[in-house]
């Protein structure tokens, strides 16, 4: 689903690379936490997956596409398969909940009929069924993030990238959001979530990739926020039932 081969990213004017020779693979349907201090390269990783940036060296394959060979004209169509959620929600303040979600379908040319059907469905799924007429500022932070998640998944993407989606939320609300993300992951969507929230990572017991100064220092199945074991850098074989056929 997502494969990095010796990927480095060096920003202009920086001597230290944001990502340093990162190689890893994320499989279909996996739920992956990306942990590490600020500046460790988590956001750069997500931006590279989205092809908002190009790597300085190395190759990235996402959804079977070599991103280095993807022309900029095709990037928008590639992005339609990836949903993104941010810490700051990024909703349009003057549009109500329904329109915020519908907007992302309108701009990729979906029909009115499709929108009328898909948006209420996804709002129901994220638990905002009765609030489609509200404006973002009339919602709580958790509800706003649900709208953002609804917008990210309404087009049924194969991958959902979440950049600290609970960063602005209290623990109880965060737990609600995590339940939602877990449900989305359960329906087959690959979820990659960058986070600082140790509690969430420890409770969820999912795959954890830890970055320090742009290098993968830990890649652990069912890991916690901080490991007590010897760091494992080698990738484990895929879990039972996930054959090679499902890789990429």
């Amino acid at each position, binding site marked *: 689903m997502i494969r990095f081969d010796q990927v480095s990213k060096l920003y202009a004017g920086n001597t230290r690379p944001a990502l340093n020779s990162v190689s890893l693979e994320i499989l279909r349907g996996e739920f992956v936490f990306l942990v590490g201090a600020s500046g460790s390269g988590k956001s750069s990783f997500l931006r590279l997956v989205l092809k908002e940036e190009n790597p300085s060296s190395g190759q990235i394959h996402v959804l079977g596409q070599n991103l280095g060979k993807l022309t900029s004209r095709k990037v928008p169509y590639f992005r339609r398969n990836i949903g993104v959620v941010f810490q700051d929600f990024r909703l349009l303040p003057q549009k109500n909940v329904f329109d915020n979600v519908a907007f992302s379908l*309108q701009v*990729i040319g979906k029909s009115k009929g499709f929108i009328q059907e898909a948006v209420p469905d996804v709002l129901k799924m994220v638990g905002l069924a009765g609030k489609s007429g509200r404006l973002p500022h009339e919602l709580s932070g958790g509800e706003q993030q649900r709208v953002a998640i609804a917008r990210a998944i309404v087009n049924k993407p194969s991958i959902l990238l979440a950049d600290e989606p609970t960063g602005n939320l209290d623990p109880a609300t965060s737990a609600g959001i995590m339940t939602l993300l877990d449900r989305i992951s359960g329906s087959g969507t690959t979820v990659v979530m960058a986070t600082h929230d140790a509690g969430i990572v420890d409770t969820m017991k999912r795959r954890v990739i830890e970055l320090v100064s742009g290098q993968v220092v830990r890649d652990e199945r069912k890991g916690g926020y901080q490991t007590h074991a010897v760091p494992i850098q080698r990738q484990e074989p895929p879990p039972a039932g996930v054959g090679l056929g499902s890789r990429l």
Partner: protein
Amino acid sequence: MRLGLILSEVGHGLRRNVSMVVSIVLVTFISLTFVGAAILLQQQINQMKGYWYDRAQVAVYLCTQYDVGGNCNSVEATAQQKANIEQVLKSAVLAPLIQHYDFEDHQAAFTRYQKQFAGSEGTSFVTPDFLPETFWVNLKDPSQSDAVVERMSGVPGVEDVVDQRKYLQPIFDALNAASITAVGIAGLMLVAAVLLIATTIRLSAFSRRRELGIMRLVGASNRFIQTPFVLEGVVAALIGSVLASGAIVAVVKFFVQGYLNAKPSSTPFVDLGDAFIVVPILIVGGAGLAAISAAVAIRRYLKV
């Protein structure tokens, strides 16, 4: 559906930046009016050239007994000299250039003189022998008068050879200068218009950067993102070019046709037909320029 969405985006953008849009309209209006005026002036010059050059003749003035210049020595051109001059005009060198020529004797020149200067004091004491006999030469191609002037100047009995076109040249030079000035002003104003459009579109994109960010995130195609902004610039410029076209047509109708052409005159002026040639140039040019500058301005927001 998508068209409706794009058009509503255009409407939003125009309403959000009303003052900038008004300035685009005004600047394109003025600059394109100058462009149109320059084109009209060129058309006017061409028409006048065509009209006058067809009528311009080369005059071969023969010696009179009062002339000392040219090949004269205060001796009237003799019959033999006249025959010789006519021979030169018919020669193999000049004949192909000449459409036809007429000979005007003293009496005919005097009659024409009296008609032309009727009422002026000179007519009372000028006598026919003052006025030179003249060969009036019409050329097939007026621009080749030099050959005739050069060949005829040296022939005995010729006082002077004059290409009438040279009297017209200063007028055309003045009109040309005016048209170049108009083009210059138009060029400067167009640069201002292009920069203004680019700035306005950037402002518009900046105020919509949230939407743009989300559009890019969810995979809206570049063309979809770009089109509303380009249309915004085009709509504003189009209003300006329509106003400019109106101004050009009004100038031709009310000033040229209504004022200049009202007095009987032999000078041909540009008419509404010429103005209507200018109109599509202005409209297409204005819209095209706006589309290009808006598309360039918005490109920065499309980088993926």
